[in-house]
């Protein structure tokens, strides 16, 4: 394997080929389309595995592979190359994306079985894989931006996949619009980089963590500006406050999409961006502080929203937001937290994808009902789903020994290790988040799999169930559901992901494997924690127990009402996503309307007046000048003679002056 870097392009090429074939192939491919998509996704995973083996065979300092394909924009003073960089950081992402991606392709074969546009669905999924791989493999910010927009497009197409539902179309549009705000941040960051450094390639700009590149010479103000713009981009893509409002609605997409794009991979691109740009953030402490604040606020925000939702997918979406908040918080801590941000990202990729697939499996068996108040006692009917979902649940709340325990605990430790008052505040937020996570996940678990069977004697698919998926229309609507286990193509991915949920964290942490693997890229420092590791772990356990206990008291001991009670003010606010849409509406939409209205007024009176006036006067002038053209050769000759006279006179005059 001397030329392993030549394989990098194939990673992207395989799913890209799939997207091209499936989206242009037409109906002829309907019968085999899903297999084509799945096999190409798996092929990409195989290439990733080969490259991973190759990297492992090298010394830590030689684990960066560069593949230069061609020069994209060759202009003097501005060069954009199509170059890929495969190092430990992007390798981690490649394995996560292609691995989880292949499993979800497999799962979708069963899940989308009855959708007549299944071929197109797989085309979009492959397109997503290609774009996401381009995002993490790009060797400069401009190429990264291409991938960034590509995943945005795929996300838009997949959220609105059931475009006949107005809610899905609206959700897709909302995701697209909110993401635009973030994308603008990324493009401004790239422009700032170009004007400051004259290039936006990773190598020259960032350098390595031991020896920073051009960033070393730039002023802190510039770097803070770039970093904040990158953070804005990350907020858009990763649904962080204040650009978080799209993620809940994005659950309108098919559940495999929610699992792959809106839980495991795409939404973590913001974390990747921050960790990749570590050398910029390291030199801009003010920006880092903002990153940690955004992370801490979001982790609480998402968790609170997750507590109040009765829609299982939206509860999980709140949880995703909250977990990414943890990652962003860790990424904002600098070298103390980078490795743990990525580690939590990977373990979260396993357990959250597993949870979403479990939710999809539940919906599959329940006539696409999403309201947890109409579930209950399902553990008997769906044993595999119950076990895999349960393991994911234990992982996410941080049950000792499971994946989430290792990665989340490290982040909480790192938050305290930040030191000073900030450290205490951030650490406290992270601990509080852990308690709330335990609460809402226990709530989901209890409402879905335990308690009385609330779905009996009443038809599901009530009008207020917002996310009815037509894929399973064959089950017959308005009938009492008959919960059943899902087919193998769906349960196998869930089992595989459950294994990851259980063992990944331990595997990474024993002997600090993950730390040693990633440290050459991101750098690492221990920080000085005021608390010992054991204290933090103990405190986390206490929080966990409190959260579970409260949930048990509310939902385990007492029967769950089928119709949601009115609830406290906070509950009602949380049901409305903590009023994020109302805020956006009042501030942005109304404000925007006022702004456009006043602009239109100015445009009509002032601008149009000037424009029309100019046009009228030019037109009038034209009409008058036109009369000079009277058709008589003698007039033309006089004009020429006059012109020549002026020409001669002017030339002589110039000399005289």
């Amino acid at each position, binding site marked *: 394997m001397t030329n392993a870097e030549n394989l990098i392009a194939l990673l992207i090429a395989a799913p890209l080929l799939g997207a091209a074939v499936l989206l242009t192939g037409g109906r002829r491919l309907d019968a085999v389309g899903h297999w084509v998509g799945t096999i190409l996704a798996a092929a990409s995973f195989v290439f990733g595995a080969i490259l991973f083996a190759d990297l492992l065979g090298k010394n830590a300092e030689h684990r960066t592979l560069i593949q230069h394909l061609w020069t994209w924009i060759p202009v003097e003073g501005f060069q954009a190359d199509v170059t890929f960089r495969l190092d430990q950081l992007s390798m981690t992402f490649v394995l996560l994306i292609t691995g989880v991606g292949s499993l979800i392709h497999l799962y979708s074969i069963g899940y989308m079985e009855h959708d007549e546009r299944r071929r197109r669905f797989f085309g979009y999924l492959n397109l997503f894989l290609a774009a996401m791989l381009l995002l993490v493999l790009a060797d400069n910010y401009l190429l990264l931006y291409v991938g960034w927009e590509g995943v945005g497009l795929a996300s838009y197409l997949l959220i609105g996949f059931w475009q006949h539902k107005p809610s899905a179309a609206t959700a897709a549009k909302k995701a697209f619009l909110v993401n635009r705000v973030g994308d603008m941040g990324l493009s401004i960051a790239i422009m700032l980089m170009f004007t400051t450094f004259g290039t936006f390639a990773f190598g020259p700009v960032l350098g390595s963590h031991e020896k920073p590149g051009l960033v070393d010479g730039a002023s802190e103000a510039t770097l803070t500006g770039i970093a904040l713009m990158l953070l804005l981009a990350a907020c858009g893509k990763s649904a962080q406050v204040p650009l978080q409002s799209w993620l809940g609605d994005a659950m309108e997409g098919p559940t495999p999409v929610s699992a792959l794009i809106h839980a495991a991979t795409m939404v973590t691109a913001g974390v990747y961006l921050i960790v990749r740009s570590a050398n910029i953030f390291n030199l801009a402490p003010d920006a880092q502080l903002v990153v940690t604040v955004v992370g801490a606020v979001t982790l609480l925000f998402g968790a609170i929203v997750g507590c109040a939702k009765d829609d299982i997918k939206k509860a999980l979406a709140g949880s995703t937001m909250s977990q990414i908040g943890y990652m962003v918080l860790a990424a904002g801590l600098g070298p103390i937290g980078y490795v743990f941000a990525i580690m939590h990202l990977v373990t979260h990729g396993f357990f959250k994808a597993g949870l979403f697939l479990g939710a999809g499996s539940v919906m599959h068996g329940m006539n696409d009902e999403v309201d947890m108040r109409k579930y209950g006692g399902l553990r008997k009917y769906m044993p595999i789903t119950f076990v895999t979902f349960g393991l994911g649940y234990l992982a996410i709340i941080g049950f000792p020994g499971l994946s989430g325990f290792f990665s989340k605990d490290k982040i909480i430790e790192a938050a305290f290790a930040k030191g000073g008052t900030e450290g205490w505040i951030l650490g406290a937020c992270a601990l509080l988040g852990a308690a709330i996570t335990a609460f809402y996940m226990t709530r989901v678990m209890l409402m879905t799999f335990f308690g009385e069977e609330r779905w009996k004697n009443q038809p599901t698919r009530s009008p207020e169930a917002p996310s009815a998926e037509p894929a399973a229309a064959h089950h017959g609507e308005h009938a009492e559901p008959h919960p059943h286990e899902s087919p193998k193509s769906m349960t196998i991915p869930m089992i595989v992901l459950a294994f990851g949920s259980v063992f990944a964290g331990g595997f990474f942490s024993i002997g600090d494997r993950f730390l040693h693997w990633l440290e050459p890229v991101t750098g690492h420092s221990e920080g000085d924690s005021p608390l010992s590791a054991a204290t933090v772990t103990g405190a986390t356990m206490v929080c966990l127990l409190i959260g579970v206990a409260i949930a048990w008291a509310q939902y385990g001991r007492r029967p769950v009402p089928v119709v949601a009670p009115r609830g406290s003010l906070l509950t009602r606010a949380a049901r409305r996503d903590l009023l994020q849409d109302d805020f956006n509406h009042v501030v942005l939409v109304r404000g925007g309307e006022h702004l456009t209205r006043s602009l239109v007024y100015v445009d009509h009176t002032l601008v149009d007046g000037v424009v029309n006036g100019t*046009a009228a006067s*030019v*037109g009038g*002038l*034209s*009409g008058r*000048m*036109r009369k*000079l*053209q009277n*058709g008589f*050769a003698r*007039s*033309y*000759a006089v*004009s*020429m*003679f*006059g*012109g*020549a006279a*002026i*020409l*001669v006179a*002017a*030339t*002589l005059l*110039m*000399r005289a002056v």
Partner: protein
Amino acid sequence: MSATVVHSLWTTAADPISKIDAPKIEYGQLSPTLIILGAAIVGVLVEAFVPRKSRYYAQLFVSVVALCAAFAAVVALAADGYATTKAGIAAMGAIAVDGPALFLQGTILLASMVGLFTFAERRLDPETHGNRVDSFAAQAASVPGSDSERAAVKAGFTTTEVFPLLLFAVAGMLIFPAANDLLTLFVALEVFSLPLYLLCALARRKRLMSQEAAVKYFLLGSFASAFTLFGIALLYGYAGSVSYGTIAQVVDGTISTVDPALADTMGNDALLLIGAAMIVMGLLFKVGAVPFHMWTPDVYQGAPTPVTGFMAAATKVAAFGALLRILYVVLPGLRWDWRPVMWAVAIVTMLGGAIVAITQTDIKRLLAYSSIAHAGFILAGVIATTPDGVSSVLFYLAAYSFVTIGAFAVVTLVRDAGGEATHLSKWAGLGRRSPLVAAVFAVFLLAFAGIPLTSGFAGKFAVFKAAAEGGAAPLVVVGVISSAIAAFFYIRVIVLMFFSEPRPEGPTVAVPSPLTMTAIGVGVAVTLVLGVAPQYFLDLANQAGVFVR
């Protein structure tokens, strides 16, 4: 005459004639021009000796072969280094063979080839009495509306003389930008002007208008030629030479005496300034700059449309080439005198062309005013007086000529019962009827307007950049304003074609032969290629941008 001289005429012994040096002619370097001239003469012989039925094909064959061969000769010369290292002056100082000359000759030849295709188109007019006919009069000499005209039409005559006329014009245009002395310049001017006057008079339809246009063009052209000739005389009086290089040296002061007989007038600055202004005026007439532009709309409208397209493209290339050489080779020492004057001319040309175009209702007149505005833009590049100025003008001319020929070729397609339907109101809704033709025309209009990804943008950007770097920033501002005004009427035509209801009795779009299709196709291709990837051609123009002195 003294007796001794008379005597010497009758004897051969006194001075052997062999003492007169035979002129040294570099036939190879002059081959492009010589090929075209030779082919033109062959064309005349074809008219005399080939039966009428075969003439069209014979003429077409001769013309195509000649243009191809001449273009190949230009490419060979350029490849041989005559554009750069081996650039020099040939034919006893009469003709320069250098980068700009070869670049412009190549452009003229390619544009002429495309123009030739539109000349040869015979599918647009309905067949008359079983004969396919082109855009030209059946018999040029017959009076419009007379019996003899009817007889000629009935007999199915066509004026195949247009092909040799075209070739003569092309030959003159090839010499014009390469001329290295004032007399050659004048001869070339007449060589290409006279055939054009004739061609303008040869329209098959609307013959009176066509003849009127030709007469106007001839009268005003002769008037302008007279100025040029008088300017040449004055310059000779000033410098004692008609050679560009010598005049430039006298202007610089490197040479003080050339001809003792002219000691009285030599070095008289009034002669220099007036003479230079008059020569420049003659050239400004040919490029159609305000206030010498008034012939343009009338002639463009009256001439047969293929001739208009050819003339608008190739004449402009040749005349700007000659203007560049005069200003950069002969008069660089006079820069501070002519630049302000040219500034003024450029400004009134850009604004005048753009403003008057707004109220035009005839598509051919509209394009005529547009060509005036473009002459102003090109002048902005000429004024830069930097190497970038030269190369930007070369690039602009190449880009502009193909757009122009293509646009006029499209005009030939839109027809109603009276021939070409040139009134704008008839173009309403064309996009619904013939989306392809309308789309192609829209591409040309966008190129005229200078919208990015068309050659017009690359060209405009190049000349404005050169002008700004040459210290003519105000000129660029005026240029951008004029472009904005001009964009209005280009876009208006697009709106008219695509967003208006078609008229019930509107024109039809004729299906042309592959000849016109090729002409239009080449126009679109060049427009897009020069717009999307101009770099190679900009580099080419850059390499070609150095005049030999």
